């Protein structure tokens, strides 16, 4: 049996890591070292995660259907590019390795993140004890790779700055980029709102 902070009347500070013991009933205990509010679990963690997730799902559609940028050049004329279109283009020009990386960062990571957080929030709500160690690892992976989806936002911003040859060639950002940036920020907020301690409901069991 693993001794947990909750079962011993202790609270771990989410900000500075100090462990405190609750000695008197306080409606609002704070960390004696950094003053951060102490709680056994983040308040309204699942509600906030779900809200951010839903918003991310809503924005996911325009992010992938609207053009993230438009190129204009004297030779090819005006063209709009979606995220998927840009990846296919990279693939055809022979950069299959970069195409794969952008595919992972822009398409795979956001989908997997939304799916994984849905799974985590759903199992946490049911106080499930199913594959707890694996779910804990899944959460850690999400936290590590989450911000890499911002890749496409930076690529377009840099292309806008680089390609400024007047009538010859120019690049403009599109509305899809705003939606895409929104998806990245919202999924990051969703995963930071999720409290991984909810994967381990009390009382802890020996398994």
């Amino acid at each position, binding site marked *: 049996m693993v001794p947990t902070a909750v079962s011993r009347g202790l609270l771990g500070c989410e900000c500075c890591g100090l462990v405190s013991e609750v000695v008197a009933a306080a409606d609002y205990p704070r960390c004696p070292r950094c003053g951060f509010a102490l709680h056994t679990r983040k308040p309204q963690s699942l509600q906030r995660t779900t809200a951010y997730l839903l918003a991310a799902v809503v924005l996911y559609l325009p992010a992938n259907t609207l053009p993230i940028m438009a190129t204009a050049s004297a030779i090819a004329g005006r063209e709009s590019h979606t995220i998927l279109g840009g990846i296919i283009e990279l693939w055809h020009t022979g950069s299959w390795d970069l195409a794969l990386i952008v595919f992972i960062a822009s398409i795979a990571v956001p989908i997997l993140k939304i799916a994984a957080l849905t799974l985590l929030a759903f199992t946490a709500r049911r106080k499930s004890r199913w594959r707890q160690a694996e779910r804990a690892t899944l959460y850690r992976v999400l936290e590590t790779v989450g911000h890499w989806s911002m890749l496409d936002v930076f690529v377009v911003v840099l292309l806008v700055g680089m390609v400024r*040859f007047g009538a010859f060639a120019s690049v403009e950002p599109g509305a899809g980029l705003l939606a895409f940036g929104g998806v990245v920020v919202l999924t990051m907020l969703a995963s930071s709102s999720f409290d991984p301690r909810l994967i381990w409901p009390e009382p802890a069991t020996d398994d």
Partner: protein
Amino acid sequence: MQAVTRRVLAGLGLVDRQPAVNAHPELVACEECDAVYVRRLLEAGEVARCARCSAVLGRGHLLAVDGQLALSSGSLVVFVLGNVSDIVTLDLRGVHSQVTLWESIWYTWLSGQEVVALLAGATAFGFPLAVILLRLYVLTPLAAGKRVRGFVPAMRALRWVTRWSMVEVFLFGTLVAIVKIAGLASVVPGVGIFSFGVLTLLLAANQAAGLHGIWQQASKLPP
């Protein structure tokens, strides 16, 4: 006094609180599953993991405070260099164009995507700069054995901005952009891109140490 007012004042440290909690610095609680352990000193390079969920509980410090301070000072130098130098120089049939991070953000703003420009500016410039400056602000006095004024709010802000600093993603974005543009114009990488490369490494080395070590170091000192 009204409960709410008292709560706010107590949060700011302006009124004495009932000692509702006692600190237990000899213990460590897993941040990801709440398991408690007795703290022990780790050797340099040693990593302690939670027996239940295998989250990292702590790392033995490879770098003391002055080592971390050196990393942060180095980060500031390459950060400034990366932001004032060209990332790439483009050559389209004799027409040259140099690009800095700021120009890219500015032209994105001008083309009507102000929110995207702000997002890129914050994650590639604002938050990384805040990380470096806050680390310097906290670590410089700490290396001299002093605790700086506003240590607690600075550390809390540091925890927040570290999460939203994305220099490494920006660096990779420049590489993808260079490959995408290679068919249109010839591209020469500039000092900026190498500076961001070094900055990525320095920030990663800095962040590997985490913030709990700084908290512990500071709590040994009088406030």
